[in-house]
């Protein structure tokens, strides 16, 4: 000790900290430490004035590293660190102790809180003395983007990226762009077609046009193509495609995952008889029926006889959604909207048909949903609260049995057409892609939604849009695609990214190449290679995230995480534990001062 000169700043947080911690005593205690160059107390270090204080004070050059006792380092701490960086401090030489959330706000006992703060501060100073200045890693971002999935979200993302001047590759598994939306006859609540033909329609303004995509010189469409492998790291990934033309490789800087969702298979709820009774159809089937009627002049008929028009139609909501036993726990969000839309469509075409919608709760996270719903009621669609228990068949007509939960009455009614409003569930392909890209899946197996407050670097150049991230309607998928594309384009426009140096490094003299780190690393950043005739582990700087799992795995202590080195940790621990005085006959063991 003694080499470094630590500048210590304490924040009163406009009284929030000062109320619970005796900052004078804290400052006095810390000043005793010979490594401390000065202790300065300010009212609000994260405010503009406080930042000025930090900059000016550090500019004086009395200290070469800084410890601040303030609030959480993960939020305001970043502001303070940036201010000090402005005054020439290397950001890796900054340490912040959270004496607000971890002391002031959680301990009523002022004495104890002050003691604890003092100890934590001392420990941080000990650690600060061990810190070393580091530079960030700079990675180049390849100015091309991969969009996985050619549905509404994928097409929109590609268009946005292309508009910003970068080449976008759409990789689509099937033979056509458009995804599920292309199979919809009408979209709701605006009552227009799924994919663009009527220029005046509001939804169409939002809906990307397949032709636009096909004609855009900045978009390359790979149909009937599968992603085989994704290699490389942040900013520069090597993607292997398997398409009709054989194997192909792309180098891309960013990736937008828009793999979408699957439609729930109604066969999994056997009591609804889908696949058994011909007059039980899904909403996707109904789309086709309506489309045929409207576009090629077919007639709206019962599938069982192909002749008669259904007199009654019953929609069953939440098929596969909100069903933790046979389906999925989540709400699919779009089914209420589209089922009501289809019901209205039937009413519009054939006002004499009785239409019932059986629901548990009506959920429409759309602007205009309530009006849509009211309109349906006014048009004569009957809403029945209560989930249909089972569908049976008697004398050639399907019957449904349910409790009308408003009436508290069981009803067994004959009907001509049962429409199952099937929900969305995670696509198998999404899971595969997520695995390739080390993306996390949520409990519902959709790709996990990252906290939008996290800087976009945390996404490592991979953005998720549309239903791959959870059930969504067309409009929200498009919004999603736009923001994902914007973030991807920003990264590519910058051309390079700075990545923290706080990552793993291997001491090759200690490493014996056992490969335990390689097994543990989720990012494939650790690899055992042969070097000078022996096996050693090496790190891919672009991929390493600095979690330290490999270091914990290593039996030989060959792995160090920069900025979290073992000596740094130990220095901190020694002080935080207060080993000094321990074992000296037990004096003070358990006394306030010792523990505080």
């Amino acid at each position, binding site marked *: 000790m003694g080499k470094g000169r630590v500048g210590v700043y304490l924040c009163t947080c406009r009284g929030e900290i000062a109320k619970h911690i005796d900052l004078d005593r804290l400052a006095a205690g810390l000043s005793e430490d010979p490594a401390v160059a000065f202790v300065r107390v300010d009212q609000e270090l994260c405010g503009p004035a406080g930042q000025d204080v930090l900059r000016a004070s550090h500019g004086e050059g009395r200290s070469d590293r800084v410890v601040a006792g303030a609030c959480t380092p993960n939020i305001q701490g970043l502001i303070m660190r940036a201010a000090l960086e402005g005054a020439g401090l290397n950001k890796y030489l900054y340490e912040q102790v959270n004496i607000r959330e971890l002391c002031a706000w959680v301990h009523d006992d002022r004495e104890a809180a002050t003691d604890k703060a003092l100890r934590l501060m001392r420990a941080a100073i000990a650690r600060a003395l061990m810190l070393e200045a580091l530079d960030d890693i700079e990675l180049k971002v390849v100015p091309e983007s991969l969009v996985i999935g050619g549905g509404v979200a994928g097409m929109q993302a590609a268009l946005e990226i292309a508009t910003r001047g970068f080449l976008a590759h759409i990789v689509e598994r099937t033979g056509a762009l458009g995804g599920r939306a292309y199979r919809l006859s009408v979209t709701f609540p605006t009552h227009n077609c799924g994919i663009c033909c009527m220029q005046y329609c509001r939804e169409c303004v939002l809906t990307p046009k397949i032709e636009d995509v096909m004609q855009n010189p900045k978009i390359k469409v790979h149909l009937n193509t599968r992603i085989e492998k994704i290699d490389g790291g942040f900013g520069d990934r090597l993607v292997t495609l398997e398409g009709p033309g054989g194997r192909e490789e792309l180098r891309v800087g960013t990736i937008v995952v828009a793999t979408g969702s699957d439609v729930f298979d109604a066969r999994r709820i056997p009591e609804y008889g889908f696949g058994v009774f011909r007059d039980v159809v899904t909403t996707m089937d109904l789309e086709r029926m309506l489309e045929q009627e409207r576009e090629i002049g077919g007639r709206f008929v019962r599938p069982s006889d192909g002749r008669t028009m259904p007199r009654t139609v019953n929609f069953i909501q939440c098929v596969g959604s909100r069903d933790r*036993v046979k389906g999925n726990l989540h709400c699919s969000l779009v089914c209420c909207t589209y089922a009501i839309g289809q019901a209205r469509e039937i009413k519009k075409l054939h006002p004499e048909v009785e239409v019932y919608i059986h629901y548990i*709760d009506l959920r429409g996270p759309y602007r205009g949903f309530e009006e849509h719903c009211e309109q349906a009621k006014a048009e004569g669609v009957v809403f029945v609260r*209560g*989930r*249909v228990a089972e569908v049976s068949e008697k004398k050639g007509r399907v019957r449904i*049995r349910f*409790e009308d*939960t408003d009436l508290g009455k069981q009803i067994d009614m004959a009907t001509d057409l049962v429409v199952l409003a099937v929900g969305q569930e995670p696509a198998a392909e999404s899971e595969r892609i997520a695995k390739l890209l080390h993306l996390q899946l949520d409990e519902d197996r959709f790709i996990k939604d990252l906290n939008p407050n996290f800087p976009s670097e945390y996404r490592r150049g991979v953005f998720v849009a549309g239903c791959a991230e959870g059930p969504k309607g067309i409009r929200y998928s498009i919004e999603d695609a736009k923001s994902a594309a914007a973030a991807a384009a920003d990264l590519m426009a910058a051309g390079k990214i700075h990545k923290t140096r706080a990552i793993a490094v291997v001491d090759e003299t200690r490493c014996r190449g056992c490969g335990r780190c390689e097994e543990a690393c989720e990012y494939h950043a650790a690899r055992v290679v042969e070097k000078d005739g022996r096996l050693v582990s090496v790190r891919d700087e672009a991929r390493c995230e600095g979690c330290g799992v490999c270091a914990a795995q290593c039996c030989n202590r060959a792995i160090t995480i920069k900025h979290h080195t073992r000596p740094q940790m130990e220095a901190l621990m020694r002080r935080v534990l207060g080993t000094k005085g321990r074992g000296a006959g037990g004096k003070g063991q358990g006394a306030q001062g010792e523990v505080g």
Partner: protein
Amino acid sequence: MTPGGAPEAQKKRSTENGSSDAKSAEGGPLIVEDSVFTGAEHDPDFVKQIIRYGGKDVQTCLQCGNCTGVCPVSLKTPYKTRNLIKLCQYGYKRIFFTIPWICAGCHRCHEHCPADINPAEVFVAIRHIEVREKGVPRFIRDSTALILRHGFGAIPSDDIKRYREKEGMPPLPNTLPGYRKVLSELEALFRKTRFTELIGLETGEGAAGERKARERGGEASK
């Protein structure tokens, strides 16, 4: 109303379609009793108790009505499974204690429940609570007495015994001399689990209990 007294209550309250129409079979009352819950019926621990006795968390019920839709009892009585689960959510324990034990235990409700609640098991849990807090229905005590006495819930008639002999079927276990040991085992186990204490059947009173049971058992086995 005790569970034992259920048949009478049932007779009055159930109508053909389970609806409690203003006009009952007897041309009954148009005006019903004040049915406002005052909150005094509410027991906030009810849900926890249900879980303790092996039921599931009823708070996750979606009130979709699937259970009622398939419930054979709901179809014929004013008691609707979904409403009963709602009562559980509210914690109206005391109201439950007035409801006869009429769940058929067919578990169709569970088969169809999207929230995996299993109302049948919830009612089993509620019966556990009721037995402990309010007392045990008579038929439980009677059949337990029978089982303690014979190992089984009924006693075969002489006709049946003759038929068995004629057909060369092996004798029923509880007619064999060694069965005494089995009964003593059963009694030991019931005492160990304090079942006889729980249902208020003192094993010492076995004989008296059995007499009572015989009267009913004779009727039941007919």
